[in-house]
């Protein structure tokens, strides 16, 4: 009965979403205040209905109701409770429900925190979000119903894919979706502004916190996914340029460009059309990512079972949403005007260069991801595009982007002087160049890529330190007061930029100095890597809740002193009969020691892979710093000030003028 109630609740949600999608937008066009006013209650009702439906599915999982097809396909009575709950989004139908739920959460959030917006603007924004919701709810109810019954019921479930039975599964997808779907807010703001015809600084100011919030979630989501892949896939990689990873990375790149471009539009009124286009693209790429994962068009570790009807439906939805908004853009954008003029050397041009580089990077990732499909569709055969392409394309694009990142924040708006800049930054340049050459020489490996990576990382750190120093210098108040006096948004930028530097350092060092060995180890055997001795203690059989495992212990010592013990498991999940490797990792600031069991050989020996990964944790720490910077910017006090009164005053003034 509960699943039917959940299903019914989903149907009601569709009806509410339809009303939300049409009534407030029509109301805004006709100036009907009652219809516009419907947006808020409808957004809340929609959230309650989808949330209830989600709880019903969660209940079916918790109570092991195997008369529901989706539960039977993705759960098992032996599955531990936390994974039984996470299994709600472990398959196609449930992840769509999570998508719809998160969209309704963002919709409610917009309805709550938009009191300062003009009524017609708010009505249009919530309406556009309602229309997106209609698409997803229709998709679910027509071809991907999570509540479909299985008659007769299965005796037990087929179990969640063992790859997903990991704490990462509990956080990674919801975080990623919060980011993906969060861009729908910036998208809806842009569409609402195009519909209403007023693209101004106020629009950019309202969009900024929402975009930053979505970007923070996406950053954390991608970071969690990368970290998960690192310890779960068992070969020590942290990014694979897999089609689905790319699908999350493209919106991130465009979202990052959007954050910067919104800043220009708000402060200087420039780049308006470009900012709108970025807002549309960020969300479009999120939708495209959903399509790529759900349709089976590309092969990937993330792919779900495919059904061509689903693919056709999502593609039609994509064409309506993206095609429609790009058409609206083509129609309205030429009328928005150019904004303030600026010189070649000015913060505007630096941010423009940043935007162009990030957009080109996103396009090249898109090209690499879809290239196999293009070639196949044109009948030229099957190819796959892997890390060599992406590495080759990415380094030349990111090098100027990171270099300009050091300069951009200290250049004046409108026009600046190049000689003055050069004077100011000559120390930062010298210090980072010297460090980039001396440090690798001390570590014993200087290659052009290591030198370049280190130079860019130290360049960002040095210029940022220079900027902070100059901003804090020369006033009489105590340091703490001076720090407090600067807006948090600015500190957020500083921390996020330093996060990029930390990330770059991690990537450069791990790529340049990592080492690995693959050895055959019998109990008592010792392997040597990076100055450490790895002693194999043999393998014990252990029994997990829904798997059996061989657990191998490797004692790590240096110069006879024991440092740590790595435990790697080779698990066999009994229901799906799938083997999984759990790597044994000892993470630390300086380096990770990483061991994973391979295959059993004769006489109790195993093939073992051991990795030494210097500073690999810095990669994820850098991502966390970026996300923290974003959060700090969000807590800026200007977002907490009520602006409604001021806006009303402005509006009545305009009416008088008209």
């Amino acid at each position, binding site marked *: 009965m509960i699943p039917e109630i959940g299903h019914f609740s989903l149907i009601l949600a569709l009806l509410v979403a339809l009303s939300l999608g049409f009534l407030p937008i029509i109301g805004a066009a006709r100036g009907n205040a009652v219809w516009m006013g419907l947006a808020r209650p409808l957004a809340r009702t929609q959230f309650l209905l989808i949330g209830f439906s989600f709880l019903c599915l969660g209940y079916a999982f918790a109570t092991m109701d195997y008369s529901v097809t989706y539960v039977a396909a993705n759960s098992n009575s032996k599955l531990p409770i936390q994974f039984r709950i996470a299994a709600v989004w472990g398959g196609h139908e449930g992840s769509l429900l999570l998508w719809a739920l998160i969209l309704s959460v963002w919709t409610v959030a917009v309805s709550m925190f938009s009191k300062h917006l003009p009524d017609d603007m708010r009505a249009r924004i919530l309406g556009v979000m309602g229309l997106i919701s209609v698409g997803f709810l229709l998709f679910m109810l027509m071809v991907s119903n999570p509540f479909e019954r299985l008659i007769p019921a299965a005796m037990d479930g087929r179990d969640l894919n063992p790859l997903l039975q990991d704490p990462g599964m509990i956080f990674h997808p919801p975080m990623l979706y919060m980011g993906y779907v969060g861009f729908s807010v910036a998208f809806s703001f842009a569409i609402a502004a195009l519909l209403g015809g007023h693209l101004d600084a106020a629009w950019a100011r309202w969009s900024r916190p929402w975009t930053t919030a979505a970007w923070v979630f996406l950053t954390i989501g991608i970071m969690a996914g990368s970290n998960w892949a690192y310890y779960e896939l068992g070969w020590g990689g942290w990014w694979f340029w897999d089609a689905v990873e790319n699908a999350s990375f493209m919106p991130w790149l465009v979202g990052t460009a959007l954050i910067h471009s919104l800043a220009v539009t708000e402060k200087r009124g420039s780049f308006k059309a470009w900012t709108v286009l970025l807002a*549309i693209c960020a969300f479009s790429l999120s939708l495209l990512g959903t399509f790529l994962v759900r349709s089976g068009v590309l092969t990937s570790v993330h792919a779900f079972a495919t059904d061509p009807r689903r693919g056709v439906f999502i593609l039609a939805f994509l*064409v309506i949403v993206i095609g429609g908004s790009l058409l609206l853009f083509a129609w309205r954008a030429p009328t928005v005007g150019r904004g303030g003029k600026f010189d070649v050397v000015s913060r505007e041009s630096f941010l423009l260069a940043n935007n162009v580089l990030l957009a080109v990077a996103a396009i090249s990732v898109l090209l690499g991801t879809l290239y196999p499909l293009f070639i196949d569709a044109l009948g030229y055969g099957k190819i796959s595009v892997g890390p060599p392409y992406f590495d080759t394309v990415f380094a030349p694009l990111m090098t100027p982007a990171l270099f300009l990142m050091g300069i951009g924040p200290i250049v004046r708006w409108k026009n600046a002087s190049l000689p003055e800049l050069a004077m100011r930054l000559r120390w930062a340049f010298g210090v980072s160049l010297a460090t980039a050459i001396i440090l690798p020489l001390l570590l014993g490996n200087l290659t052009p890529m290591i030198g370049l990576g280190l130079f860019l990382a130290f360049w960002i750190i040095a210029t940022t330190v220079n900027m902070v120093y100059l901003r804090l210098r020369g006033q009489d108040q105590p340091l703490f007061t001076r720090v407090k006096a600067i807006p948090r948004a600015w500190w957020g930028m500083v921390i996020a930029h330093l996060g990029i530097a930390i990330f770059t350092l991690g990537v450069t060092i791990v790529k340049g100095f990592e080492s690995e060995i693959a050895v055959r180890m019998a109990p008592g055997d010792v392997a040597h890597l990076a100055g450490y001795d790895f002693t194999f203690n043999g393998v014990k059989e252990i029994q997990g809740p829904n798997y059996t495992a061989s657990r191998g212990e490797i004692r790590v010592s240096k110069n006879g002193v024991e440092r740590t013990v790595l435990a790697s498991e080779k698990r066999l999940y009994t229901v799906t009969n799938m083997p999984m490797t759990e790597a044994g990792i000892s993470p630390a600031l300086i380096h990770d020691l990483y061991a994973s069991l391979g295959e059993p050989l004769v006489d109790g020996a195993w093939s073992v892979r051991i990795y030494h990964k210097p500073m690999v944790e810095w990669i994820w720490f850098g991502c966390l710093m970026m996300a923290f910077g974003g959060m700090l910017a969000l807590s800026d006090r200007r977002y907490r000030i009520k602006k409604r009164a001021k806006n009303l005053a402005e509006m009545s003034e305009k009416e008088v003028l008209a």
Partner: protein
Amino acid sequence: MKRALIPLALFLVVAGFLFRGLYLDPREVPSPLVGKPAPQFSLPRLDDPTKTISPKEMLGKVWLLNTWASWCPACKDEHPLLVELSKSGFVPIIGLDYKDTNPEAQQWLVEAGNPYVANAVDADGRVGIDYGVYGVPETYLIDKKGVIAYKQIGPITIEALRDKIIPLVKKLQTQ
């Protein structure tokens, strides 16, 4: 206005490819051997290991080379179709018994029927490597000159038989 249409145009091109992509299977890997002569081998026969069998003996005929094994569940799915096909006498089928043991393979043919004119025993899978077999069952259609005309990856389905294999065999037999 014209410049503002560029994003839309680009998107529509991508959407066109995505639509085409829905009807392509990214997992389907074409065999590089299609259009090339079938690799030669000389292997013992399953029913009489003292005799050998080679593709040369089939020159002048259109025939199917079907890799299978008694341990392979998917082979059991396609087996009834192969038996039907052999009863019609339409096209001879040679089996390539891949990484299998003789008693079990013979037992299986007794139980489920024997659609094969003859079976070659590829116990260590060496010939399978020449043919690029990466999963049984796989089936090759070979023409009168000994050239591979078509490769079916995975079990033969009724659709594949009706829409691809039978029309192709008819065409090749008239050549």
